[in-house]
């Protein structure tokens, strides 16, 4: 009960792999998040959006998991963005420095239009 499972759902929109993270991003989430990232990478996706749900719980273990994803995204030449974070977690992402490597958007739609502009330019 207290391990509150994270539900991970993968969608494909406009050439972007959208990974919905529904629930809490803590140490229990590691396998699911890494698994989803590996899956979309194996499918050859360059653009990845981590779509959070407002007000879920992200702790330092969750931040470590996300830094692990950013490390691989950089190595694999992909682009990562995040959406749906509450103002508190947007602030924490900026404090930690994650925002330098994964652009923060308020909503999924805003992130998708930014990816569209990016893929149009490249």
């Amino acid at each position: 009960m207290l391990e509150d499972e994270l539900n991970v759902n993968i969608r494909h929109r406009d050439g972007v792999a959208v990974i919905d993270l529904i629930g809490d991003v803590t140490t229990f989430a590691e396998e699911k998040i890494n698994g989803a990232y590996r899956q979309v990478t194996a499918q050859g996706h360059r653009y990845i959006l981590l779509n959070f749900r407002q007000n879920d719980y992200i702790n330092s273990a969750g931040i470590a998991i996300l830094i692990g994803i950013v490390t691989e995204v950089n190595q694999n030449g992909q682009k990562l963005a995040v959406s749906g974070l509450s103002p508190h977690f947007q602030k924490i992402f900026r404090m930690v420095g994650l925002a330098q490597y994964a652009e923060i958007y308020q909503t999924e739609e805003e992130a998708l239009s930014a990816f569209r502009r990016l893929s149009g330019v490249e």
Partner: protein
Amino acid sequence: MIRLLDSTPTIRLGGMTGMSGAEGVTEQVIELRLPSRLGYERIAMDTAASLARRMGFADERIDALRTAIGEAVTNAIEHGNQADEAMKVVVLLTVRPNELVISVSDQGRKALEVEQTKLRPHIADVFQRADKGGWGIWLMRELMDEVEFTLAPGGGNLVRMVVHLERMPISDQ
């Protein structure tokens, strides 16, 4: 409803009515005793958030408090008590007129090194390391007004944090 295993967490409310002079200062202390199992930090987070809301803290401060207390209790569970469920994490929430004092103590299977309490990780360095963690204590220090690590009377680790009621939220970086 909170009921897990045979080690049920307890919540105790103590009214320490120290009448100090004419002001009649009342300190209320809430004590939580939590099993050392990951997930129980949420009980402390929810309790502290509920208390802080009643005290009139702004939403941003309550979010900061949730994160800080979650990290403190998680450290106590995983590090101090080495996730031995029989060992307790004791959380004291002391309500004062203009501040909330949070103390989190473990039973000290493993003591915190002083250097561990002063880490300031940098993400570019962390990319190179296998272990991407080490952000918890740094976050606590960034988010709370005061953070102090000492030894608990019983020999465990004790972290004491204070959040002031009238201080404006820390600005974004």
